[in-house]
Structure formats: structure tokens, C-alpha cells
């Protein structure tokens, strides 16, 4: 905390005051949480029948069944599968879009820009519906194709920004060695832009993973649909809350570990910058260099 320039290193009185404030806040939050847990744990009356509280053993006893976990695992696998295929597709489409958008020929550049803006401005869900109804590919490919195209458009934009940020000398050096424009772009500029933007791209892939959950709406049996719809209806509604909590925990575990990878890559990419600390515990400190924050998640598009 003392690293922050926003306030002085606190003296004894301020420290005491801030400790008191801290304690009050902790007590308030703890009280709020305790209230929520207590309310959930209470048995409730619903049209004459008394239902057990949400933490009652009878709402959690299904989770000892191995078969249930196999089905949840299947749902998770379906989510990861769709995410993996869509991620590969998004990377390819992203490179392609970046190539086309930075072309020297206006005849290539302008249509590419229009198509890109079209894809970026449209909800992914609508794209999934479009593919589902028009191409009738089945839910899996609707999810994968829509996510691939949409995230490809976004990755293409960030690659383009990466290309634009490269020093001009790189391109000039390539051209002066006798490489063609395409060769210069492919072998000199792209590898650098890609490495530069890698943290942003990984963070965007986390967004892609989260968005596979839209499969719930278009009828692809991914994690949420498996746990909430399929399992929910076969084991009964009273397990809905328990199933919801389990699904939430699974998503958080997967996404937080992927985000951690993105941050680690981001930190590795910027050696010698003192900002690394700021990324792990984003505290009050104004970043020491006055540079825009290095947290890759800040530059993604949901």
C-alpha cells in the first residue's frame, strides 16, 4: 500500500482509523453473507409442504453418485471441445482478417473492413441462430462457427493494432532485403505482432470459453445445459440450487486458471517493467510508469 502516491504512508492515527474502517466493513460483509447463508439454510413453506433448507443433506445427496459426475464431466468436456475448435478457428480467421485489412489494395481492404465491422457489431447469439437456421448445421457447429467468426474478427482487430504498433524499420528492412510485401508481412511483421498481442489474444480466448455457454440457448448440450436442464429435470427441481452452485464453481475454476495463464504470459512479455506487482494485486498505486495498464483482460471485448 505504501507504494501508492495517492496518499501518504499512514501515520499511527490514520492507521488506526483505517483499521477500524476495515473491521467495520469486514463485519458488515460477514453479516451480509451470514444472513444470506442463514436465509438459504432455513426450511421454507410452500403451499402447505415444508421444504428443507438449501444446505440440507437431502438437497446434496445426489453428489455422491459417480454417474452424476460422469454426466457433469461430459458437459464440461463438450464445453471445452467447442471452445477448443472455435479457438483454433478464431486464430486462423483472425490472422486472415488482419492480413486482408492491412492490404495495400483498397479493393481488398475496404470489403474486409465492412465485413469485419458487421461481424463485430452483431451479437454472437444472433450469429448462432443464423447458422442454425440458414445452414442447419446442428447446434455444435452453430456454436463453434459463430464463436470462431466473431472472436476471429476481434483477434484480427488486435493483430492489426499490433502490426500498426511495430516500428516502421521492420517492414522497410524486410522490403529492402528483397522480400515481397506479402513475405515481409508473413515472416517479419506477423510473428512480432502476434507475440506482442499474445496476452490480449489469450484473454480473448477466455471470453470465447465463457461464451460457449450461449450453447445453452441454441440447444447445444454444454455444461450449463447438461447440469441445469438435463440433470435438473432428471433429478428434480429441488436440486436446482445445488447444481447451480456446482456449475458456478466449475466455471470459475476453469476461467480463473486460464486468466492466470494470460496474466503470466503478459508479465513474461514485459520484462523489466515494475508493473508486474500491479497486475496481481491491483491496489491503489497509480502505475509507476504512467503507461496504460498491462492487464490483458482490459482490452478484450466481451
Amino acid at each position, binding site marked *: *500500500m505504501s507504494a501508492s*502516491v*495517492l*496518499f*501518504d504512508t*499512514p501515520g499511527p492515527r*490514520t492507521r488506526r482509523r*483505517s483499521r477500524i*474502517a*476495515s*473491521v467495520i*466493513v*469486514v463485519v458488515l*460483509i460477514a453479516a451480509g453473507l451470514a444472513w444470506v447463508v442463514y436465509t*438459504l439454510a432455513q426450511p*421454507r413453506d410452500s403451499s402447505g409442504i415444508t421444504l428443507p433448507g438449501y444446505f440440507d443433506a437431502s438437497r446434496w445427496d445426489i453428489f455422491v453418485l459417480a454417474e452424476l459426475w460422469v454426466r457433469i464431466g461430459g458437459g464440461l468436456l463438450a464445453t471445452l471441445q467447442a471452445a477448443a475448435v472455435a479457438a483454433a478457428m478464431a486464430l486462423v480467421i483472425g490472422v486472415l482478417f488482419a492480413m486482408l485489412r492491412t492490404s495495400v489494395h483498397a479493393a481488398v481492404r475496404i470489403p474486409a473492413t465492412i465485413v469485419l*465491422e458487421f461481424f*463485430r*457489431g*452483431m*451479437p454472437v*447469439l*444472433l450469429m448462432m*441462430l*443464423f447458422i442454425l*437456421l*440458414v445452414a442447419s448445421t446442428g447446434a455444435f457447429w452453430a456454436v463453434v462457427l459463430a464463436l470462431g467468426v466473431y472472436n476471429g474478427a476481434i483477434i484480427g482487430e488486435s493483430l492489426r493494432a499490433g502490426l500498426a504498433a511495430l516500428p516502421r524499420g521492420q517492414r522497410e528492412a524486410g522490403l529492402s532485403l528483397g522480400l515481397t510485401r506479402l513475405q515481409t508481412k508473413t515472416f517479419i511483421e506477423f510473428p512480432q505482432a502476434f507475440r506482442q498481442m499474445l496476452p490480449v489474444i489469450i484473454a480473448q480466448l*477466455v471470453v470465447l470459453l*465463457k*461464451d460457449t*455457454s*450461449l450453447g*445453452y*440457448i441454441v440447444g447445444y448440450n454444454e455444461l*450449463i445445459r447438461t447440469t*441445469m436442464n438435463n440433470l435438473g429435470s432428471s433429478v428434480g*427441481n429441488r436440486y436446482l*440450487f445445488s447444481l*447451480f452452485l456446482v*456449475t458456478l464453481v466449475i*466455471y*470459475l475454476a476453469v*476461467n*480463473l486458471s486460464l486468466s492466470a495463464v494470460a496474466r503470466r504470459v503478459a508479465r513474461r512479455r514485459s520484462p523489466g517493467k515494475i508493473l508486474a506487482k*500491479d497486475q496481481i*494485486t*491491483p491496489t*491503489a498505486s*497509480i*502505475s*509507476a510508469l*504512467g*503507461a*496504460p*495498464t498491462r*492487464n490483458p*483482460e*482490459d482490452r478484450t*471485448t*466481451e
Partner: protein
Amino acid sequence: MNAVIENLPRFIEAFGMTLWLLATSGVCALIIGTVIAAMRISPVPSLNVFASVYTELLRNTPLTLVLFFCAFVLPQLGSRLPYEWAAFIGLTLYTSPFVAEALRSGINGVAVGQAEAARSLGLGFMQSTTLIIFPQAFRMVIPPLINVLIALTKNTSVAGGFFVFELFSAAKELANANGNAVIAILLAVAAFYLVVTIPLGILSAHLEKKLAVQR
């Protein structure tokens, strides 16, 4: 094309719901996000921890799950809200951490010398943040905030999967009813979304360029 013109009132009704969701949850997310961002830079450690846990939890939960919670789990817990309000709550909760992060990165972007100068002039925490840091940070966060709103516009479509009649559910309903004009209907719906997102995108890019020159 005829199917689109015939169903125009239905489209307008759905578009109105999309705009309502965008406006209400946009405004509330801005307010909550500002509070969370303020907590994140405040000198009280427990507020910091609370704000970062809130941000991390909501940012890593899929929107579908958040809306599922509001539409299906909340009624189980005794809420009697109509689905529109459930969607509003879900979208607000989901968008607020993104607002907070945009604000925080704006604050981090203010040159450190500004804060040092304010401090060395004897301004306190409140004075240096409200008079020196925020006015500068605010200009820098406008483009990212607009991008958050663009994302929110697109995210309102997810509410269509949870019993709210907005553009996405209109697309689904009308496409099912007019099997021969599916493409026209879906393109019309896309056009309604683009009417909101593309001008916002242009505005954001324009402001970004304009503010960048002045720095």
C-alpha cells in the same frame, strides 16, 4: 422482405425492449461500477479485497449463468420479479465489473507525476483524486466505457433466451413463423443491432483519436 415490413411493429416493440435493457442496466452498471472502482483505489484494505473479489467472480462467470440465476434460481429463493427485471439485474451485475475495470485502467493511465505534483502541493487523498486524477482519468476512460456499452448492447440478446421479448427472441419467433423469409428477418434484426453498435463504435474511435492528440 414482405415478412419484414409486415412484422415491423413487432420489431419495433422488440427493439424498444432491447433499448430499455441497454439504458437501465447501462446506467445502473455505471453507478455500481464507479462505486466498485472507488473501493478498489480506496485506502481501506478490506474494501479493496471486497472489490477485487466481486470483480473477479463476476468477470469469470458466463453471462448465461448469471441470467440463469436471475431467471430460475431467484424465483426458487422467493423472488416474484418479472423476467424483464430479472434480466435487468443480471445484465447490471455482469456489466458492473467491466465498468469498474475500465475506470481503474483509466486511473492507472494518469501519469504518476500528476499525482506526485498534487501530493507535493499538500492536497489530501480526496482532493488529489477528485480534483487532479479523476478529471484526467475520466477523459481517458470514455472510449473504453463506450466499448463496454457496445458489449452490453450485444449482451442484451442473451436475455432473449430467458423469456424476455427483445430483438433476439423476436428473431427466433418471426423466423419460425416465416419459414420462407428467415434470412431477411435475421438480417433485419442484425441491422437493428448495428444501428446501435456501429455509431457507438465510430464515436468511441473518434473520441479516442481526439483525446489522444491532446495528451
